[in-house]
């Protein structure tokens, strides 16, 4: 687990208390969302698990509604979200349930832990593929239908 060069603060800003929703699950919640006590939208992902020190590290971002909707609908990526949002935190949760919060900036995230530039919301990608046949409109729809018929 990498070292965080920031001080721990006491805050409940990055604590999801409602509307918890897992956006990507692969053996564990990888990407998830929710709202905090103050109604702010939160987007979060797992960073790493350290079984020696018994701690799991997460990256929490407080996202405004517009950016959240743009992400959920597949218009912007998680990579872009991390660039846009100002309030980001590393949250270390021990296996015993203790929580330590570190406010961070984009530059505090080691490059290898950044999402890829095509990190669209997996749920949006699934919906786009499922709805592909009925979501095309106008000239493009006619063009693709013609191509499919050829």
């Amino acid at each position: 687990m990498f070292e965080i060069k920031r001080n721990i603060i006491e805050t409940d800003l990055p604590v999801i208390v409602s509307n918890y929703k897992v956006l990507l699950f692969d053996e564990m919640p990888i990407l998830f969302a929710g709202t905090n006590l103050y109604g702010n939208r939160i987007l979060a992902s797992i960073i790493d698990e350290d079984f020696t020190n018994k701690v799991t590290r997460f990256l929490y971002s407080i996202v405004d509604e517009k950016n959240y909707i743009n992400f959920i609908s597949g218009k912007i990526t998680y990579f872009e979200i991390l660039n846009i949002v100002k309030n980001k935190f590393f949250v270390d949760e021990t296996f015993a349930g203790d929580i330590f919060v570190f406010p961070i900036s984009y530059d505090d995230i080691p490059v290898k832990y950044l999402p890829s530039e095509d990190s669209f919301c997996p749920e949006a990608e699934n919906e786009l593929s499922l709805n592909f046949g009925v979501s095309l409109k106008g000239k493009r729809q006619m063009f693709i239908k013609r191509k499919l018929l050829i």
Partner: protein
Amino acid sequence: MKFDKTPIIHDCNCLENANEDSHNHFLRRVYSNTPNDTDFHTYAELGKIPKDNCKDKCSYNGVSINLTTELTYQLIIKKYKENIQARKKINAQISIPEYCFRFKMRETAGKIIQSGNEVTHFTFYKADDFTVDNSIENLEVTHLL
């Protein structure tokens, strides 16, 4: 078959309605193409501490497995592969099992009970003398990358 190594299983009555199953095929994500006992460690064995309720305590002292059939196997493999690709876009660093182990349990392996939202998801409670070598029949290991 004994479950005395983990008293919580008895204290929380986790085995109520749990059954042996040596007929069906099950899946578990594992770290290599030669699954071993560490691939069947529970959260509790990994040092994670559950919240103070029996639902979590039972869950942390069992192992997640998925029931599969010949019909659903390829669909599940496809879904696992999609999840891994999506996960790597969000976080390419975190270590997650990238093999899928298909197996049958011998009669003394332990007991299973359906759990979670998916009907194919089961919690497997290992018997005290469980080992992969002695308790599991290896059917297939698929690399998901």
